[in-house]
């Protein structure tokens, strides 16, 4: 599992091991300033990073 959140310190405190920084706390996987096509491109890229985090074997907690 990977948790996507902008509050990675909170996620770390509660013991999450695999964390990816999201955008804002009220839209972790959104970028409303961008036009829709660009926002989707940005989100695809972010989710690709999330998948890469899932592919990374971990022994210690890590914030990607």
């Amino acid at each position, binding site marked *: 599992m990977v948790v996507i*959140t902008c509050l990675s310190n909170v996620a770390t405190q509660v013991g999450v*091991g695999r964390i990816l920084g999201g955008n804002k706390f009220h839209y972790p996987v*959104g970028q409303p300033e961008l036009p829709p096509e660009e926002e989707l491109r940005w989100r695809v890229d972010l989710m*690709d990073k999330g998948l890469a985090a899932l592919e990374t074997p971990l022994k210690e907690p890590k914030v990607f």
Partner: protein
Amino acid sequence: MKILHYLNQFFAGLGGEEKAGQNALLIPRAVGPGAVIENALKDRGVEYAILACGDNYFHEQEEQALTAIRAAIEQFQPDLFLAGPAFNAGRYGLACAKVCSWVRDNWRIPAITGMHEDNPGTKEIGRHVFVIQTGASAASMPESLKRFSLLIERLLSDNESGIENFRAEYCLPIPRRFTARSAAPDYVRAADLLLAKLKDQAYESEIPRVEAKQHPIPNLTGSLRNATVALVTEGGLVPKGNPDRLESSRGSKYFKYAIEGREDLSHGEFEAMHTGYDTSTVNKDPDRIVPLDAMRVLEKAKRFNKLHSHYFVTTGTGAMPSKMEEIGAGIATELAGSGVGAVILTAT
């Protein structure tokens, strides 16, 4: 010396379930359990009034009920507030807990209630409220009311050691969510902590830190190309209209919603139930919390095998950590049972 005593419709003698919708009502004399306590204190010159409110009314119209209770308090000006005892009655216990905590916080007068240790009201009681332990049913009424009277006697005589002994012997141990480190009012202690922090001095929070439990970090078994990936969120995203009534805070449930055949989550079809963040941006495009559109692009590009048929959702605000653990375990069990190999969880 004035005592205001909160009772539900039943113990105030107004009626049974058919009167559960009764609005809060000030009765300028002691009735029901109040009459017993008044009689026990008859040498004390007590002025007694009852505040009666229907069990359903309190919960369904909490704001109006509290408005009526405020008016009653301002009219009667009590020195002491009582509620119940509620034994193991859930609606009544919750109302007693909430109203006592609210009165204690707003008027700084002693507040006493009584209930059984399993009453859900015990989880809603604020600091400083006396919660006398009772039996599970009204069979323990006489004994419970003796304890109410004993505590009131001690409060009236300012018998501090007697009060502390009473608390230790007869009150439920309500776990405190924080520890006041001095007798100063809340706002003074808060300002002191802030000043200490700004001056780089040592300070200690009154709120206990939640110690992180060390969980093993699960790694992927095999390749993502063969894995089903699921989306989970604590962001409260539900179909428009919230058909399953997911709570917007203090979540106690989780739900799963089908996304099979959907390319994205559109405005107007889904909405977020969550008092912990401004949901307007997510409501305009729900993919900003459950990134279905992006995951479909990556699924088509064969970045992973397939997206799970449903996304899972709960509300992660104001909730009990123990309840959240239960919800997490429930979601994990369902996902593992459906052959899901990896999870992306979005959190606000």
